[in-house]
């Protein structure tokens, strides 16, 4: 059992953009709504995940979505793969129609996928990748994020010099793919960069410490690529009295504010967002699938990227907001339109 594998065209291609030409489509037999949908998150104690959950709840609360939902349940199982597999299987057993997954690891999903197919449950992965080709997933191209950053750096630095790469949490696929993409570009023939690599764990504190050390040991840099905790890296340069240089970083609001304020001090910035709003696309995909529409096995979510020249206050970043959040939060083609501030300021306890 399980979905029928069909070839395009898919449904709402503008929103559900197939990863590439080879990407196949899944088609489940249409079910009458309203549906029971669950979201199984892993680690929860970081802003990105919290914002993601908030977005999911806000999206589920939209009238046009709400009418499709009988129940929407969210659990965060922490960094424990067994618990995450268990939770998904539990919701399958409970007879949920679809389960959205922000996976702790890309591997190990075969069993639950097999069960889901037996019971006709739709699973949709998002954010961190899932290796299996038998489950529909929504993802941003992390390798591409690395490449974009690399190309932008080459554009702004020229094709030689000393670069600082601040990496994310070791062992995660997100970290690895961004790293690969970046290296592919800067190590491409024609470029001669010396790249100094440190680990910042996507956290400002760690990034700042690692950057400060790197500056102390290696002196001046000509360009920076960081995966997160971006403002920490900027801070380290300021503290060390080092001239700011072109830098590609994550989508934290605080970093974008710095990009705006410090550009004439040399911080030419690029900010790519791993958007927490992916979750909304995943839910939209799940509902579509349940309604019998074909959806891509791998939906490519456009990588929201702004740089110091293109970003607009009040839209791409929010100087007046002191809160901590990821600025990129809207996907117009999928008519997902909340701004991050809307999301983060809604009160915590509106569960549907």
């Amino acid at each position: 059992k399980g979905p029928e594998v069909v070839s395009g065209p898919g449904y709402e291609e503008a929103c559900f953009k197939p990863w590439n030409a080879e990407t196949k489509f899944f088609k489940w037999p249409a079910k009458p709504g309203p549906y029971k949908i669950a979201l199984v998150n892993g680690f929860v104690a970081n802003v990105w995940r919290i914002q993601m959950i908030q977005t999911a709840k806000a999206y589920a609360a939209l009238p046009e979505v709400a009418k499709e939902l009988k129940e929407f349940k969210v659990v965060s199982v922490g960094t424990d793969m067994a618990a995450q597999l268990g939770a998904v299987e539990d919701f399958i057993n409970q007879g949920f129609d679809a389960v959205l997954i922000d996976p702790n690891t890309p591997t190990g999903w075969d069993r639950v996928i097999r069960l889901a197919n037996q019971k006709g449950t739709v699973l949709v992965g998002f954010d961190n990748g899932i290796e299996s080709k038998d489950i529909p997933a929504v993802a941003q191209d992390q390798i591409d994020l690395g490449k974009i950053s690399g190309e932008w750096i080459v554009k702004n630095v020229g094709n030689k010099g000393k670069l600082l790469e601040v990496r994310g949490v070791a062992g995660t696929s997100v970290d690895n793919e961004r790293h690969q993409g970046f290296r592919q570009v800067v190590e491409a023939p024609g470029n001669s960069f010396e790249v100094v690599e440190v680990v910042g764990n996507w956290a400002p504190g760690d990034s700042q410490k690692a950057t400060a050390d790197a500056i102390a040991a290696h002196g001046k840099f000509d360009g920076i690529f960081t995966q997160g905790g971006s403002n920490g890296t900027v801070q380290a340069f300021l503290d060390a009295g080092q001239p700011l240089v072109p830098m590609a970083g994550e989508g934290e609001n605080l970093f974008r504010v710095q990009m705006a304020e410090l550009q004439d001090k040399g911080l030419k910035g690029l900010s790519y967002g791993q958007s927490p709003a992916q979750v909304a696309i995943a839910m939209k995909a799940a509902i579509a699938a349940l309604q019998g529409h074909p959806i891509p096995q791998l939906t490519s979510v456009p990588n929201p990227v702004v740089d110091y020249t293109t970003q607009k206050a009040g839209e791409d970043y929010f100087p007046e907001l002191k809160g901590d959040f990821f600025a990129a939060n809207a996907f117009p083609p999928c008519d997902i339109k909340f701004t991050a501030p809307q999301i983060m300021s809604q009160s915590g306890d509106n569960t549907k």
Partner: protein
Amino acid sequence: MKDLKLRITQNIGPILALILFLILYVFYSSLHPRGFTSDLFVQNSNEALTLILLGMAQTLPVLLGGIDLSVGPLMTLVNSLASHLVSGSAVEIVAGMIACLVVGALGGLLNGLIVVYGRLQPIVVTLATGAVFSGIALFLRPTPGGTVDPDLNWVATNALAELPATYGWWPNGSPAWFQFIQGIPMPIIILVVIVLVVWIPFRRSETGRACYAVGSNEGAAYMSGVKIERAKLAAYTLGGLFAGLAGLYFAIQTGSGNADPIQAGTYTLNSIAAVVIGGTSLFGGAGGVIGTIFGVAVLRSITFCFRVVDSDSAIGFLANPLLQPMFEGLILLLAVSIGAAGIFRMKNRLSIFR
């Protein structure tokens, strides 16, 4: 009769854990739309087994009066190793599994050797070896991946029925006696086998008792002519073996390897919590893995419950994903504080010191 009373008072910890588990589990399975089914039981035991095995690994050092901060990393190390070794031909698979368990045992033995001959405190030794194990794991599996035999994965994570089915033992129907037991989840069978074949004999052996003796009063044990070094080494090695089993099952269950140090840390801390809830004294000398099994059951049941509470019910707030993490903590605190009830019943204040 008098003895029964004595036995109960002496095992009050595990008994309390069992009761607590039953309460939570009945609550969960009664709210569960499908009720208590074989599927449910299979899923729940899959989810619990790895932590149970790791809790067992933690129990031994704790019985000695120590603690082992390296069980999680060691499990992760074996898990990463298994993702390289446990695949291919039947022979390769078996050999691979044995290799994994040996590595686990050796890891435990290493801890034991440093603790005994280095005469260092277990908590700091394992804090350090834990880092080393994590490092090796990351080295083996820089990113999650690898493969473990899919049939093995399927068999080990389903009801017993799938065992003959997967390997086609009885092409023309399974024998009658099998019908009775085929509903039992594989993880439960694995657990029972391990307890019967490894733990019970150890517990009843002289060395096993020596571990309790050492944990109870090392000096006295030494004076009484107990082979304290052998006991310690045995305990740590067995602990390592259990950690290895945890890592191996984890690999089989997830069909892959993952060196994530953060996950390793989570598992270590949960294993300690499970041991305590299971009624093993952190001072050593009293307790056992049976209690720990219930301890894990309690921990897991807490999270199970969050999946079934209805947001419009009286306890709907438990359904709020942004409140759950806090309530998880509060319930954990509650569970580990149950022992405190005893404190208030103590009529002699001296008995709280130990």
